[in-house]
């Protein structure tokens, strides 16, 4: 009989931190990473030697990037592993840290994501393909955009409103790569990338870092951490793609399967969610995912969007950080940055981005493969 995270001892997020996401620069990744970790330690009000294990999420830095970074915090000898899981690398590292604390193998664990924008290298499987080299990620999502618009009779302008909302949120986030409000005209302007997709509807992959420290109740007491600032990890679920009926979008179906398990584990319904941070690398994804998470029936997402139900202060604030479109998507950090945003929101400490009364948040990532990770966080 397997058990869920919630069946094990409780795990709490006690500290979060970032190096702001930004356009590619000369800043060494070590600077990015230690900045985020030191901010998370300060947020938890604990010292580095209290951290008993570390999971370093990175997809683009090559082999063994962690130790040359972590040694500058003091080489305590803590166990260290690297996690690569495409866009979900950070979410995966966070899950591993939670599992380690929940199991009792550690009292305090760190998940840190750090990346620079380096070329992606994927080994050939040995199978040839018709023209996969011509299908970039934005082309994959442009195909899905056209399918969505056709199937549900939705205009490209309405799909682009996702970006207007997320740029508006990102403009209020000091850690966001894009911090400028955009009108619908601006979002629709600029040269087309593929189909109706414009650059402001696509994530700007850049660089940055995010860190989250998780701890047990024992550690919270022993280290004198303020329990009112500790956010419970109420569910953690991971799945990978199966074979779906022809024509179904695998990212959307996989999201539905994974979220259903996570909501059941946390014993809540989609309607209970106050905050969702999800993988909006491209505008149409946000509609797919809110529908498959269960906020509304398929094809109805645009109505929620236009009614303001997904705004900060609406029914459920979706991507209050700005999401991947505005906050950015430096790959390794992204899933951990979502946990950080939800933690701030559930503490009531998100400043001008605060969604009033937020109690429950959900973090969602998909990664090439495809894999899907969902975490549910609740305030005490």
């Amino acid at each position, binding site marked *: 009989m397997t058990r869920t995270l919630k069946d094990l001892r409780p795990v709490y997020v006690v500290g979060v931190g970032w190096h702001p996401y930004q356009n590619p620069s000369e800043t060494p990744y070590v600077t990015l990473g230690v900045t985020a970790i030191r901010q998370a330690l300060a947020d938890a009000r604990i010292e580095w030697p209290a951290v008993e294990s570390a999971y370093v999420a990175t997809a683009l830095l090559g082999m063994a990037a962690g130790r040359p970074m972590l040694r500058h915090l003091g080489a305590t000898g803590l166990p260290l592993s690297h996690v690569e899981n495409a866009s979900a690398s950070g979410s995966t590292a966070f899950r591993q840290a939670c599992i380690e604390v929940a199991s009792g193998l550690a009292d305090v664990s760190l998940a840190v994501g750090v990346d620079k924008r380096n070329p992606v290298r994927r080994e050939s499987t040995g199978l040839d393909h*018709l*023209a*996969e080299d*011509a299908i*970039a990620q934005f082309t994959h999502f442009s*195909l*899905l955009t*056209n399918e969505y618009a*056709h199937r549900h009779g939705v205009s490209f302008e309405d799909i682009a409103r996702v970006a207007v909302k997320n740029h508006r949120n990102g403009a209020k986030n000091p850690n966001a790569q894009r911090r400028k409000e955009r009108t619908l005209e601006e979002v629709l302007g600029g040269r087309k990338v593929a*189909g109706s997709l414009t650059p402001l509807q696509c994530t700007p992959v850049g660089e940055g870092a995010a860190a989250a420290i998780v701890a047990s109740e024992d550690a919270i007491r022993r280290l004198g951490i303020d329990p009112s600032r500790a956010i419970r990890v109420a569910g953690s679920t991971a799945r990978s793609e199966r074979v779906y009926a022809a024509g179904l979008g695998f990212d959307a179906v996989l999201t539905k399967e994974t979220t259903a398990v996570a909501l059941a584990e946390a014993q809540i319904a989609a309607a209970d969610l106050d905050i969702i941070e999800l993988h909006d690398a491209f505008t149409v994804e946000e509609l797919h995912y809110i529908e498959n998470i269960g906020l509304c029936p398929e094809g109805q997402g645009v109505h929620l969007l236009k009614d303001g139900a997904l705004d900060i202060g609406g029914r459920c604030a979706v991507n209050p950080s700005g999401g991947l479109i505005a906050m950015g998507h430096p790959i390794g950090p992204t899933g951990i940055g979502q946990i950080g945003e939800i933690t701030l929101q559930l503490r009531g400490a998100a400043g001008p981005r605060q969604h009033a009364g937020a109690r429950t948040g959900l973090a969602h990532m998909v990664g090439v493969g495809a894999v899907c990770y969902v975490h549910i966080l609740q305030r005490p």
Partner: protein
Amino acid sequence: MDAVLLKPTLYTSSGALLGGRCACGHVFFPMQTYGCEVCGRHGADLQPMTLSGRGTLLSSTVVHIHADKARATPFTIGKVLLADGPVVRTLLVDPDREIAPGTPMVTALVSTDDGTLDLRFAPEPSP
């Protein structure tokens, strides 16, 4: 037809696709014997199956920007549900026109810059 095919392991000079079929019934493209994505059978349980090259368009998009400068833009990518079951995504013959979902599609071989023939999809000619 004497011209050389660009990817002869994937299609024939008549525009058929070289797929496979598992003993469990799952039809896939391209042919491989690593293992079946549905049931995990492998090796001789996976046998070659020639797919007809006909299908229905699910979606298409005109690509205006592409990182590989060797691939001239615009070009159009289509997602086609083959009559035999698998979904394939590849180039359409017409480089700058989206086609309505639901359109019947058929493979066509077109000349590439290096003189080989490569497979594309185009709307099936009206009878």
